């Protein structure tokens, strides 16, 4: 997943990893280390530019994450850059993600009396409008059946609350009717596969992993899943990349994002032995 997120990052753009997103932090550092050396990497919470973290920390606003930053932005400067069209890509997740790329990290239930209050979206709402492109990610696409044989889907028909906006609001307003700077989400990277978005702005399955397949993805997705005519199996990272991630995250912070089962997933990698 880290590798898939990293692959969505273009060289030479300005990108920001926000906070509470260790997978994204690792993906950005991986991208800069590999195919995107001129990436302008802005660290979430500290707003340091191109830092060389000592190690991935359990909380984001830690000096260890900001070590040797080339220069520093402030919270307002980062968001100004986004609002003026200079944030190339942002990475957002949600407890609910719908087929248009709307997401909810605010609360479940009615907005005037949530049954489950989530932590909130940080700057996600603003950045979903302002960043040029959005990578959506979730490490919890696979959802277990409960006692009654139901799933609490991560990829849902409709979000209870729209924290960040995708290609069409829950009211049916297309993104193009709003004066947003950014083009919206162009992929959803999950533990089960990678989606793109079709011309209508609807999520469409484009990649699966060696151990997943379209039917499995559909089973764990509440909305109907169109499958790309060119469905492919995702490229896997090579061992060097895996080693890079292990070195940067000795505390295995990123595994906290993963389910117990996913932590045990194993892929034979290119060049592994």
């Amino acid at each position, binding site marked *: 997943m880290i590798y898939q997120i990293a692959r969505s990052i273009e060289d030479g753009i300005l990108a920001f990893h926000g906070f509470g997103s260790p997978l994204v932090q690792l993906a950005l550092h991986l991208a800069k280390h590999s195919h995107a050396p001129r990436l302008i990497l802005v660290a979430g919470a500290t707003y340091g530019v191109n830092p060389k973290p000592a190690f991935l920390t359990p909380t984001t606003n830690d000096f*260890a994450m900001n070590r040797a930053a080339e220069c520093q932005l402030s919270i307002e400067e980062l968001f100004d850059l986004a609002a003026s069209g200079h944030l190339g890509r942002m990475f957002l997740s949600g407890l609910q993600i719908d087929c248009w790329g709307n997401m909810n990290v605010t609360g479940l239930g009615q907005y005037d009396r*949530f049954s489950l*209050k*989530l932590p909130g979206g940080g700057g996600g709402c603003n950045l*979903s*409008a302002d960043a040029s492109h959005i990578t959506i990610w979730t490490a919890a696409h696979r959802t277990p059946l409960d006692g009654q044989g139901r799933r609490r889907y991560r990829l849902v028909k409709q979000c209870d609350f729209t924290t960040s906006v995708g290609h069409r609001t829950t009211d049916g307003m297309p993104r193009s009717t709003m004066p947003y700077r950014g083009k919206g989400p162009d992929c959803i990277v999950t533990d089960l596969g990678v989606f793109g978005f079709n011309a209508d702005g609807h999520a469409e399955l484009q990649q699966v992993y060696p151990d997943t397949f379209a039917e499995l993805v559909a089973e764990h997705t509440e909305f109907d899943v169109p499958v790309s005519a060119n469905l492919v199996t995702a490229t896997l990272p090579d061992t060097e990349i895996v080693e890079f991630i292990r070195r940067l995250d000795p505390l295995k912070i990123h595994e906290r994002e993963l389910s117990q089962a996913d932590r045990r997933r194993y892929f034979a990698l290119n060049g592994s032995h």
Partner: protein
Amino acid sequence: MHIQDDKRCSLSELVAHIRNGDCVAIGGGLSWREPIAALRESIRQGVNALKLVGSAHGIDVDLLCGAGCVAVSAQSYVGFEQDFGMAPNYRRACEAGSVTIKDSCCYTLVQQLRAASQGLPFMPMRSVQGSDFMKLHPEFKTMLCPFTGDKLVLVPALQPDVAILHVQYADPHGNLHIDGPPVADILFAKASAKVIATVEKIISHEELVQFGVTIPYFYVTAIAEVPYGAHPTACYPFYAYDREHTARYYQAAKQGANSFADQYLKPFVYECWDHVDYLAAIGGAEQLSRLAQWQNSTEDWLKLYE
């Protein structure tokens, strides 16, 4: 404009600037430089019905929620990130309805604070429209831009009654130096009617200018020297995040309101007469010196978080 020659006072005098019902901006962010000693003292003084505004917060807001001091929560995030996840006291208070949810987003907050510090009634924004934040904030208005024809959201000026900050250094006149990311502290200081700050170390003006003035004195109402005033959050270079103590906090909070009151509020807030007592309660010099070990080596730094 705050022009007293000497702004120094005790922690309890400092916190007395907060009134019940105030709109309060808490400085720092997540596990970094939160003014927790000032919040503990506020709880002891029985401050209540606060309206909290901010960007990304954690134990600060959760603690105030757990102590029943909060009426309205208007942050963009309240949680313990990947470290411990959701904020238990905050969740309980929101879901019970005792705290009114007015969630915001980072840039919306920034623009509202800027409107206040620029004396403008509002700031226009492109984002927010299309999201459900419009429902949580019926005070937001929209307009058609006379230049572009675009629909813009107008977010009103936000002037907190008090900003509560924790900083590394200050001089007696109230000039503040913040080392490391200021997060929204400077915005808060410029927009708020009053600014109160706990300070790791109050030094002479001559020493302070060597570090640099981050926030000029005239924004600042009062300061109190409170070493370790951000504990258990970090205040580099003095001390790192106390993950061990935070885990203890989180476990107490997760088990329920009563457990939090008994296992955390009682031993670490109510039964501590003052901040010195608190420092003893958390383990005294031994625990505190442990938090400075990050400077020794990356390995020692790592050990703090294992």
